[in-house]
């Protein structure tokens, strides 16, 4: 594994919240008929949780499943489990029209942690999304834009946010988050 490095190799910054590149994260794109039991079962096994509803993410420890679109899930797993889990899906779905592929290396993932309101505020500077607690709660999953690149965001728990972006723009997204959370630039909007 020493050869294997994530986009920013764990870079971090601390302003009014902490920003941290989370290192290698296993991710599998699974496309298929989400209403088919077979596919749901395969996803459950690989993702270690139930398949979430539209616009949500289901998490269980180091595993999880995010709803990407009506025919696409993103399965989260530890990086070194990807091959095995992918194998599992492929064998379960043999003969069923689907697409399952490892996308772990195509992405970068960030944690934004700190005071809940300030975590929300950091994202609200960059994404055209209502980040208020009433509108965006832990468990929801939102694909959107962060400044000029696509991103997906969710809140695993109070005071924690996750951001996924493409690997090639990891530095850009890190710079965005770092800039947005510079001490002294607190907005004080969410309470």
């Amino acid at each position, binding site marked *: 594994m020493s050869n294997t490095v994530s986009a920013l190799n764990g870079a971090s910054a601390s302003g009014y919240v902490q920003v941290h590149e989370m290192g290698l994260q296993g991710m599998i794109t699974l496309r298929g008929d989400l209403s088919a039991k077979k596919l749901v079962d395969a996803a459950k096994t690989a993702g270690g949780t139930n398949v979430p509803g*539209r*616009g949500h993410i289901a998490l269980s420890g180091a595993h999880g499943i995010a709803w*990407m*679109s*009506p025919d*696409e899930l993103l399965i989260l797993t530890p990086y070194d489990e990807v091959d095995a889990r992918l194998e599992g899906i492929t064998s379960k779905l043999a003969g069923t029209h689907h697409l399952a592929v490892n996308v772990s290396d195509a992405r970068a993932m960030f944690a934004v942690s700190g005071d809940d309101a300030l975590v929300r505020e950091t994202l609200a500077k960059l994404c*055209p*999304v209502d980040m208020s607690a009433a509108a965006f709660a832990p468990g929801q999953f*939102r*694909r*959107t*834009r962060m400044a000029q690149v*696509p991103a997906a965001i969710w809140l695993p728990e109070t005071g924690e946010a996750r951001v996924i972006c493409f690997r090639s723009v990891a530095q850009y997204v890190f710079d965005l988050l770092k800039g947005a959370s510079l001490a002294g630039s607190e907005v004080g909007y969410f309470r």
Partner: protein
Amino acid sequence: MLILTCPVCGVTAEETEFHGGGEAHLKRFGPGSSEGDFHDYLFSKENPKGVHLERWRHNNGCGKWFHAARDTVTLEVYGTYPAQTSEPPQDIKDAISAKRPGWTWRDFS
């Protein structure tokens, strides 16, 4: 700056999360079609001052295409609906008729 609701993922978002794709319900003409049909398929636009049926892609979101019935003068959005149709659903047609009695679109109204 428009807001649209993606009928596929249910997200209501601002224009910057979407990509406009021009007129909807085009019928593709391929090899063997007449000069006129092929020309009209690619170029003849409704471009109305009023109700416009159009395509959008939720590109900074679920990635899916959908259709919208939108007014090019008032920017009212009468509704959004799946791309896999050749006409808007009746409830959207009714919503349009309520605001724009007598509207038409190519072969239907």
